């Protein structure tokens, strides 16, 4: 099976105008790829379905806005993939 990074990158490419080859492990989803909030929710919906999880976007956003977590922790591709892996592991997948 493809890695979480590859699966997420494929989802982003399918749900935005970003070319797949431009999505790299160090790409920031918002700053580098230019994904806006509406496209990001479409992407999150696709990730939720693909991985059978509920990505806690609201909690992540609140943490970033409150300054208790750096945005890179959630929105840089390699870290996003790691967070998804953690969510999948937490649900027993």
């Amino acid at each position, binding site marked *: 099976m493809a890695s979480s990074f590859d699966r997420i990158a494929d989802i982003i490419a399918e749900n935005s105008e970003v070319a797949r080859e431009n999505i790299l492990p160090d790409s920031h989803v918002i700053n580098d790829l230019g994904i806006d909030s*509406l496209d990001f*929710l*479409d992407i*999150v*919906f696709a990730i*939720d*379905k693909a991985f059978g999880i*509920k*990505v*806690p*976007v*609201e*909690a992540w*956003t609140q943490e970033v806005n409150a300054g208790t977590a750096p945005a890179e922790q959630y929105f840089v591709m390699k870290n996003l993939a790691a967070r998804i892996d953690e969510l999948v592991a937490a649900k027993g997948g």
Partner: protein
Amino acid sequence: MRLEYFQMIDRVASLQGEAITVESTIPDASPVFEGHFPGYPLMPGVLLVETMAQASGWLLLKLMDFSRMPFLMGVKEAKFRSFVGPGTAVTVHAERLHDGSGYAVTKARIEAGGKRICDAELTLRIMDFPAPELAAAMKQRGQELGLA
């Protein structure tokens, strides 16, 4: 329906699990029909989308016990299959397909006389009520509809 007030839902027919069925009647007369269209009044497609969004919204409000507010943010796969005009009684079905973090996805359709009028997949952003007046108004209308 009161088109000019964007009050698209008349009553709730059923609420089961994560699905709602509501009923409404398109008014016999409205300024909307003077422009859409002269001599051939039709319910505008955008108002049919609004009607599906409101059915979805009431469903989500009920499922969240009126604690937060859904706002329409995306419409996918909208298909308008039949014309519908003044005085028509319609039935609107909506079900929640996905309960996400800060958003929900619903599938909705409108029927009239057993015939499919339109359908769409809707994405709604779920937010805290931005104004207490809105929370109160939604709860009051929800009570009138038997939801709150």
